[in-house]
Each structure stands twice: as C-alpha cells, then as structure tokens.
C-alpha cells in the first residue's frame, strides 16, 4: 500500500464540494449575525441606547453584555476575557454588541443606529510603553542552569544586543465562522471552525448558562487554522450561540476579513535582550536572555507561549550556563494567541541571530559555529531545563545537508559575486530547528477515539483531533486501515464531534497525529481482541484440530485469518456480519496519554517533551541594494519525519510551513496607528507570500532511516517545526546586507526584514563606511 495517498478530501476540495461552515445549507429561518466592536483602544462605556437600532427592519435581536444568560466570560485559561464588553473596552475590535438579522445589510444598517458614548482613556499600545509603565500581565518567570553571570565575566568574548520580532496574522483563508442551531430545551448544536471543539463547547455552555451535555460542537474541517482557531474560534461560536439562544433561530456568523484581522489576536511581538559569552572558536559559554512578549489585552495562551519560548532559547545548541527571564506584558491590543510555533519562532530567531553575530565577530562561517555548538550525541546533550536530547539527528542532518546543498562551493561563489557587484548582494544561511513535541501543559497530552464498525464491513472513525488542512484525517485513516488490515475505502473519518469523543485537547502543539493516532490504534486494538476471541471460538466450534488461538488471529488485506492455519479465514465484511449475529460489540473507545513526560513548571526542570523534531534549511537570497527587494534564489530543506505515515502530506507541511516562516520573516508586517487601530487590516496592506515569492529552486527531502520510537508507526510529527526553517531566509538576507561592508559591521536588523528594513539597514551601513568607524562596532 503506497503511503503517498492524496488528502482524504482532495476531490472535494478541487470540485468545490467540500463544506465549510458558511457553506452548510441551513433552514430558511437562518439569521445572519454581526459583531459590533469597540472603536477605542481603551475607554469607559458611559451609556448606550439600542432602541432605534432594534427597529431596523429584519433585525431579530441586538444583545449587549446584560443579555448574556450565563457568565460573561470566554477566557480559555484565565477568566479575563469578557464575551461582550460591559463597562470598559480594552482594545479596538473588542465585541460590545451582537446583532442578528435576516441579512448582513440589515445588520449593518442596525449597527449604524446604535447609540453609544465612551469616555476614552489613555491606552498602552507598544511593548516599550508597557515596560516603561510596568504593566505586567503576571509575575516574571526564570529558567536557569549554571551561573551565567560569573561565566560571562570569564568569557573572552561577550556581546549583547536586542532583537525585535514582529506580530503576524494567521491569514487562514476561511475567516472565523460558526453556525449555531438551537434544539429543544437547552440544546444547542454548533458547526464551528475551531481547533478546539471541547473548549468551544465549554465556553458556549458557560455563556449560555447551560451544561456541557446540552451543547454539541462539530467541526468538519477548517479553511486553515495555524493556531488562530485554537482559542479564538471560540469567540464567534459563543457569539452565534448567544444570538441563536435569544432568537430561537439558527444564527451564522462569518467574520468579514477586515473584522477578523481587526478583532483577533496575532503572533506575539517580542523584544529580546541578550548577552552572550563565547570563546575564540565560537563555542558558547554563557547566555543571558530576557524575553518580553506583547500579550495584548488578555491572557489567552500568552503564558504557555512564553513558556515554549523559554524552552526554545537554546534551539539546537549546548549552552553550559544559561539564564532566561521572561516577562509577559499587557497592552491595549487584541489578545495575542497561538500561531504555528507558539513562541518557538521568536526564541529560535533570537538564538540563530546570536550565532550569526558570533560568526561575524570572529569572521567565521556561521554554519561552522552552529555545528560546533550542536547538542552532542552522547554527552553535552542535556538542555537548560534538564531534558536529554535523545535520538539527536542534528549532526547527521548537518553533514547530509551541507553536502546536498553544496554549501561550501556556493559560499565561495557568493563571496566572488559580492566582490564584483556593488548594487546586488547575495547571502546564504543554514539554520536548524530542534522543536519539543508535547503540550508543555502536561495534562493536555491525551486523546480519545471512538471506532464503529458496521455490519457491512465499513468503519467510521471518530477522534478528538480536527482537520485544518494538515492532513490529520488522511493519516488517521491510513493508521486505522493499517491497524485493521483493511483497504482505505472501507474507512471514513467522521467530522470531529464533542458528542462522540468528549473532553478532548485542542489540535495543537503538533501533536494531532501522535496522540489521536494512538487513541485510534487503542480503540482498534480493543475491537480486534473482541473479534479475534469470537472468530477463534467460531473456528473451534467447527471442531477443527488443532484449535485456533485468539492470539494467532491476523487482520490483513481485508481478511481475518488464523496465522497458524491460514486456510481458516474470512473476508472482513463477512466476518463483521457474523460478529453482529454473534452479539459482539463493534464499537469501542480508545484512549491515549503520552507516557514518559513530566515537567515541574515552578522549578523549570524536567522532561516536558516526548521527543524532539529536527529540521534544517539552507536558503540563498539576492538583495537589491538600491531597493531592498529580496529574491529567494534557492532553498534546500532536510527534515526529519521519522517513518513518515504519508510523505506527500509531510512534504506539503514542510514546504507550507517554511513559506509561512518566510512570510513572517520578510513581507508580513503588522502595523497599528497611534490610537491602536490596525492599519494592516486587509490583504491590500498585509502581504503573505504569493506563488512568485517561493524559492526559484526549492528542494525538500525527508531524512532517511529515521524511525521514531516515540510515536505512532515510527513516525514523527511535522506540523509546526518547518515554520522556523524560514529563519534561514531571514539570516541569508542579513548575510547579504552585511556583505555591503564585507561583513565587517554588524547590520541593524529586525524581523520581519521588509524591503524597508533592508534598505534602511543598508543605508546605515553605507553611512558607517563613509564615516570609517571601527570595523567591529556592534550596532
């Protein structure tokens, strides 16, 4: 059986037949919902009057915080996010009122008739401002090993600096959407675009003042998630449910793109300060890092995201003495949230930036400095939080990639090109990623499944994971087919539904296939045991000798047989019909909890991760020195997907993740104005990569002979890690800029490296050269 099978919905995708929330045919009673949000970054609500607005024809309901029957709360971890603002608004885009009407135009007409007066208050809109006013969201955290301060004093070389990384918009193609259909009594059925249906269910129950048993959330698929629907898909669900509850009619909300961009959180902006000590060979000796993140107006997942950042400050390198301080700051912007990488990208960009500076300081190739500092295979392989880096593939991958990408020769060619070109410079960078797999909130590492076999021999698999394009259902289908020994066409993976599998974790932290695949396998294991028991007794009832033992029953190629007596066999479908006749239950649940992990959050020590994912990329760019334009010439990626369940899907995830990383590192820039309004609120001004922005030469391969003992069928997740390979592009740009001064001056640099950042950096280098400053000054 080939593993390169297409996405289970591929034919539905290409024919436009795949249903997203907005495509579901609802009854003619359907109402359209609209969210009215704050135009102020911070203000007190003095009064409002909905009388006139409610009289607009077609309007069925307009709700304010007073109309919420349950708790006015939708914070996923900390209860600091009101569902509708009641007394104060804390960011532009915060929901205040909900309107349901027959048409969107009627909603908009009603919105114009709402009277509300505010008393504007002074907002905090930047990290610097939040830090200056000590507006912490919670207490700082630290994580340390050794004695960084005294080690820094002993280091021959010490450099310090800061790095700013930008926010980013998920830009899932399908905006946040939810359809709520009231049932009888307290029942509410939701079709949502959510990565976390169980949490959606919990929050809907909470705002409606009902219980979880009354609320069902179903997710067929999302038109992209990327973390943006891990918690914030809950919001539209709560809003549509409140309107459906109030009107007793189905209500659908699909956010208009600009509203989605204005209302929802982004990737956290970071301001990182660091001080690093190293020896003459570029060996890391000590590192002090101060991580500051912009959480926005509420907690959301900001502390977990910061925790992952703290755990990824090392990226792939041994740092004997390390001290990490992390502070999460509160500002008057939408609450920032999960986004592929979850704090990892900001931390890894920092570490790679540091390595790049060390190399420039020592006039060495950064790849050489990287290799020198990789975690060891047998020693020097414990992270700053105490987890051993096992199955370390960094060295193998480095060797293979340096060779396959022809790194050394291209480095020489680039040097020659740069020496003879004033107005164009090329740059190249190799960066690795080591990414910890598991939720660092340990209890979340669990999954459930419900597998039903029907008496026609077909199988319906339910599990707690959600499909957002990553191919989870395709892989689950493959895993189920392999476990049950049947062909793929017998198996359907059901839409994720909270009434089938309860209390699930979000599909996040790259764990989707790992945990849900195991839960499905466990459910199938239970079924196979039951079936084997019954079939072996059936064979034995025919009084054949020697007897068939249940343990010898095999499930292969749509047949069930006795491996010791292969003539004793049944077609799968026939067997299932018999099982029902023989009163065997063909429905089983499966459960899995990730073993071997344990994490002391207070001490910052332990084994938070089941295993590490590894990837490595070499990117080469051409920079137009006069315009700041960047062309991505070539990218080579080598990624570790273990024994891939589906190489085509994994390569798709790697390429897509990498390009998303390239976007974050280059053209994707979020800007707010001085009043806290999002200026980049549509694709007109927010630029994600197009088909023309991918490398002209793009070579992606999977590491061979790389079985992973820690996940389903020897596989390894792909999901988040490849995003961080985009950092190679960012540092290749820096390498090219740095060529303007023949690598003698550290360029000013931040992330994203837009054409503006590139050009201004080059301009400063030119001025620097003109004034003949000391060659080793660090900007």
């Amino acid at each position, binding site marked *: 059986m080939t593993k*390169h099978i*297409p*996405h289970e*919905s*591929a*034919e539905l*995708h*290409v*024919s*436009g*037949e*795949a249903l*997203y929330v*907005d*495509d579901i*045919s609802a009854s003619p009673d359907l109402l359209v919902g609209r969210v009215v949000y704050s135009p102020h970054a911070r203000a007190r609500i003095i009064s409002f009057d909905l009388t006139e607005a409610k009289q607009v024809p077609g309007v069925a309901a307009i709700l304010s915080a007073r109309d919420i029957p349950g708790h006015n709360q939708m914070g996923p971890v900390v209860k600091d996010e009101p569902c509708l603002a009641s007394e104060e608004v804390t960011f532009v885009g915060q929901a205040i009122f909900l309107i349901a009407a027959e048409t969107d*135009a009627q909603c908009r007409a009603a919105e114009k008739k709402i009277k509300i007066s505010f008393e504007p208050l002074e907002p905090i809109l930047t990290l610097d401002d939040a830090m200056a006013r000590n507006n912490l969201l919670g207490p700082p955290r630290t994580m340390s090993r050794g004695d960084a301060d005294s080690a820094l004093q002993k280091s021959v070389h010490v450099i310090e600096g800061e790095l700013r990384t930008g926010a980013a918009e*998920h*830009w*899932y*193609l*399908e905006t946040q959407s939810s359809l709520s259909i009231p049932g009888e009594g307290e029942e509410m059925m939701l079709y949502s675009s959510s990565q976390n249906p169980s949490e959606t269910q919990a929050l809907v129950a909470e705002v409606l003042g009902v219980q979880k048993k009354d609320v069902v959330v179903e997710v067929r698929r*999302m*038109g*992209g998630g990327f973390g943006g629907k891990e918690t914030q898909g809950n919001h539209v669900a709560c809003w549509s449910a409140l309107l459906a509850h109030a009107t007793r009619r189905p209500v659908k909300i699909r956010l*208009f*793109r*600009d509203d989605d961009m204005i209302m929802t959180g982004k990737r956290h902006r970071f301001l990182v300060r660091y001080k690093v000590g190293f020896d003459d060979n570029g060996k890391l000796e000590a590192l002090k890092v101060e991580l500051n993140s912009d959480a926005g107006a509420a907690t959301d997942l900001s502390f977990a995201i910061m925790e992952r950042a703290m755990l990824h400050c090392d990226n792939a390198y041994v740092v004997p003495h390390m001290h990490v301080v992390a502070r999460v700051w509160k500002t008057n912007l939408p609450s920032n949230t999960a986004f592929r990488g979850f704090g990892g990208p900001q931390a890894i960009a920092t570490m790679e930036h540091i390595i790049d500076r060390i190399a420039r300081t020592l006039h060495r190739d950064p790849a050489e400095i990287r290799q020198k500092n990789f975690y060891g295979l047998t020693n020097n392989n414990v992270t700053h939080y105490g987890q051993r880096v096992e199955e370390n593939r960094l060295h193998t991958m480095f060797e293979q990639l340096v060779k396959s990408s022809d790194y050394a020769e291209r480095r020489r060619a680039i040097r020659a090109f740069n020496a003879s070109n004033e*107005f164009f410079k090329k740059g190249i960078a190799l960066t690795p990623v080591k990414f910890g797999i598991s939720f660092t909130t340990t209890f979340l590492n669990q999954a459930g499944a419900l597998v039903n076999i029907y008496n026609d021999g077909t199988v319906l698999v339910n599990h707690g994971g959600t499909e957002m*394009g*990553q191919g989870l259902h395709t892989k689950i289908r493959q895993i189920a087919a392999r476990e049950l020994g049947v062909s793929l066409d017998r198996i359907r993976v059901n839409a994720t539904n909270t009434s089938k599998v309860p209390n699930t974790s979000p599909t996040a932290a790259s764990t989707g296939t790992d945990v849900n695949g195991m839960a499905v396998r466990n459910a199938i294991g239970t079924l196979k045991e039951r079936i084997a028991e019954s079939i072996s007794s059936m064979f034995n009832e025919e009084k054949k000798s020697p007897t068939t033992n249940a343990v010898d029953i095999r499930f292969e190629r749509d047949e069930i047989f006795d491996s010791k007596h292969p003539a004793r066999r049944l077609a799968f479908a026939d067997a299932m019909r018999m099982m029902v006749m023989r009163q065997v239950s063909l429905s089983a649940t499966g459960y899995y909890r990730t073993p071997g992990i344990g994490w002391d959050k207070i001490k910052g020590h332990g084994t938070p991760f089941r295993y590490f994912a590894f990837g490595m990329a070499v990117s080469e760019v051409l920079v137009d020195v*006069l*315009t*700041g*334009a960047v062309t991505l010439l070539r990218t080579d990626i080598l990624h570790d997907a273990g024994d891939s369940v589906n190489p085509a*899907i994994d*390569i*798709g995830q790697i*390429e*897509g*993740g990498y*390009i998303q990383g390239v976007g974050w590192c280059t053209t994707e820039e979020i800007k707010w104005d001085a009043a806290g309004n999002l200026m980049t609120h*549509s*694709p*007109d*001004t927010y*630029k*994600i*990569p*197009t*088909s*023309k*922005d*991918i490398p002209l030469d*793009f070579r992606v391969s999977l590491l061979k002979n790389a079985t992973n003992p820690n996940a389903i069928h020897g596989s390894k997740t792909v999901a988040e890690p490849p995003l961080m390979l985009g950092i190679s592009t960012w540092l290749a740009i820096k390498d090219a800029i740095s060529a303007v001064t023949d690598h003698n001056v550290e360029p000013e640099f931040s992330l994203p490296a*837009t*054409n*503006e950042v590139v*050009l*201004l950096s080059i301009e400063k280098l030119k001025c620097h050269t003109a004034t003949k400053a000391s060659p080793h000054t660090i900007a």
Partner: protein
Amino acid sequence: MTTKTNTISFVLDGRLVELSFAGSSTLTPTTTVLNFLRSLPHHRGVKEGCAEGDCGACTVALGELGERGEMKYRAFDSCLLFLPMLHGKQLITVENLRAPSGELHPVQRAMVDEHGSQCGFCTPGIMMTLFALYKSGGKPSRMDIADALAGNLCRCTGYRPILDAAEKVCHGDGQDHFVGTEANIAAMLKSISRASISVSTRGQRYDQPSTLEECLALLNEAPGAIVINGASDIALRVTKKFEPLSHIIDCSRIKELEVVRDDGKVLSIGAGIRLTDVMKIVRQDFPALHGMLEVFGAQQIRNTATLGGNIGTASPIGDTLPVVIAYGGSIVLQSSKGKRTVSADSFVTGYRKTERRPEELITAIELPRPSPKSHIHAYKISKRRDLDISTLSGTFRLDLDDAGTISDVLLVYGGMADRTRRATSAEKFLKGQLWSRAVVEEAQRHIDNDFAPISDVRGSAEFRRIAARNLLLKFWFETIDRG
C-alpha cells in the same frame, strides 16, 4: 437599438439565464457575482476570502466570444464583478468543471495527484485560474504559471505542488468536456441582445451603454455618474465600504474604446482595453510599460482593469500614469460636444483630481513611439513583488547626445506626493550634464529637495526618500555602457 431595461442575459450551467432585477427582492446591479453565486444552492464552491480582489478565493472563469466566434476563457475575481458585467458572457464556476460523467476535469485530477490542496479553501479559486490557463492553450513556462497564480493566495501549501500540477497538465491542447459544448454555448451567447442595458432598482441606476455615442449622451445627462470599466477600484466602495452607489455608467461593452491605432509614430490604445491585452500590444515597443504591467495587481485584476481606468482614478500611487508621462503620452477625452487631447503630464491636477470634465470620457491613451536611443525604465517598489500597491515608483526617460551628455531627461515619481510628480529640480540640474555617477549622485540630492513624502502604512517617509534617490542610481547603472 433600444435599451433593454432591468434584465441581463448570460450562460450559467450550460443554460441561457435571463436575470430580472425588477422581479428580485435581493439583487441589485451592484450585487457581486460572488454574492449572487453563493445565494444559489449549488454554487457555494466559490469562496469569499477578502472581498477586495486580493486573494483569488472567489475566482471564476468567464467565457467570451472571440473575434472569430471562438470561445475565450479568462479568470476573474467574482467579488469585483457586478452582475451586469456578465451580460453576453458564460459564467463558469468550479461546479462546472467535472465532466457530465462525474469525472474530474484534467486540472482537478492533476491537483489531486500532485497533492495541491491542504485546507482546500483557496482550491476552488485556484482551479478556476488553472482552468483558464489550461484553456488558453500553449505550454506555459514555470514562470508563466507562477504569474497566472500570483492572484490566488494559499496559506497552506507553499504553492510548489500547485505549480507542479499546472506544469503537468497544461500541455497545449485544452481538451476537455467544454470543447464539445462550445459551439452550442457560442450560439447562445450570439443570441443575446447587444443592446444597451439600463437597470434601476431601489434608488440605484446602472447603465451599460453599447456605443460610445450613447455613453457620451448619458454622461451629458448625468455628469455626476460614476464611470467604470473593469471597476477593480470602484467595486471596493461596494464590497468594502458598503456604499450604495447611486448611478453607475459601465463602459465595458463599448467597442470604440477597444480600438488600437498605430500610425508608426503614435500608438493609440483604447481606454477600455484590458491590461492583459494592453501587455500584448506594448510588449515590443514600450517595454517599460510592459514591465510595469507585469507587476500590476495580478492576472485576475489585469483581466478586468483598463489603462483608462487606472489613469482616470488619478491615484498618487497609480502604476501606469508615471510610465505614460515618461513616454510623453497623452490622454484623449471625449464628450458629446467633441474630443480633446491632454498631455498626461498635466492630466492630474490634484489629489485624485484630473482634467477630465464630468461629461467627458477617457477614450484612448496615446503613446508616441520613443526614439530608439531614448532610455525609458520603470521601477515599482512594493513590499511584495506581485499583487501589491506601490510604496513608490519611478519612471525615467533619458536622452543622451553623441557626446554622452544629457539632452533630455524626465524623472516621474509615484507615491512621493499627493499625485504623480516629476523631480523637476533634479531634471533641471541634469540637463546638459554628463551622464556620470558623480553627476547622478549630485542629482540625488536634488531629488531630496523635490519631494516631501509622507509616512503611511506602506512605508516611512525616510524609506521613500532613500528609495527615490536610489532609483536614479539604479537607472544610471542600468543605462551606462558597460561594454
């Protein structure tokens, strides 16, 4: 011909559809094709990603009769198409791609086989772009394919498998089930009346005259009406700002606006010619304009936008006006009283203000053929190369005499002021000087004095100043004889 009122005709699902606005409680003439389709039970494959022509999720194909009666297919953003723009055309959606047998269309098959979809939300739009590309025949290069797809954003795949699918399937013959029904569809389209259309519903009026004369008469009667052709700019007032535009005059069906005249000295390009076609016309002799059009929006936008429209909007960051000025071009304006020609250089009079009088229509853009010795280069600086709007642009024209001194120079900038502006003091300084680096560096200081750019969402004033200076150096570098 008498004007048809309140009905339009087009082909959908292989059938001739007559759509009456009078009988509808929901449709207006500015209802977009996207919203119309999504209101139908069987056309929800088309998706709204942005409602502004910046993502391509809503891409549909339109089949139109070619000059020889053949069918031509192009991709459009359905969020920017008003319903009357369908009149006389075949609307093809993703639901139409499967063969009647249910078999996937070749472009769909290739996309499945090459793993080109992940979340699938952008996929229907991508299928329609690939369908149009497939039907255009020929064997497009990898670059042509990427160009065709630049108007379709995908957030999942990184595009590589989609490019692979296109490369594999587009091999020239365009064979599919559409071929068999083409004659029938063409006959249906031919049967549709060519008369002018006028739609009036609930306070909105939409005129689609079929002749220039009728159009000018309408303009004379209603000088305040909004004139559109492709409407790629005006449509946003409906789709993003929800403005109820009260009176629209749509000139997209006026054949007189699609005339190309070339007397060897001056090329006159009809103001209503779609930019995709303008590119073919100017490729050979006006490469700077061609180059600028290559980075104008993306294919879906170029399939609808026109030169007249882009110049008429007079945006300070409009892409084509600086180039037309550098070529010494003129704008032809016509009203029912007569015709006049205004130099492109003096056409714009202020922020989004032009020489066009309310009763006038831009009918053509005239481009004098430059001397083979003139250097004309156009540069656009935008955050992203494709499907983006200029932060600034510069189009420069240089004439050198035999001694290598500058006999004439034009430095035209977009995005540096409230309108397209020339760097006049730099031009003045350069005239009569040697085209040398030292002179150029001196001229760069003059450029600084010529402009006081603003900071906005697209870039800071400082960035604009530096880039504006650098573009001149870039022009020098590209024009010096390095033989």
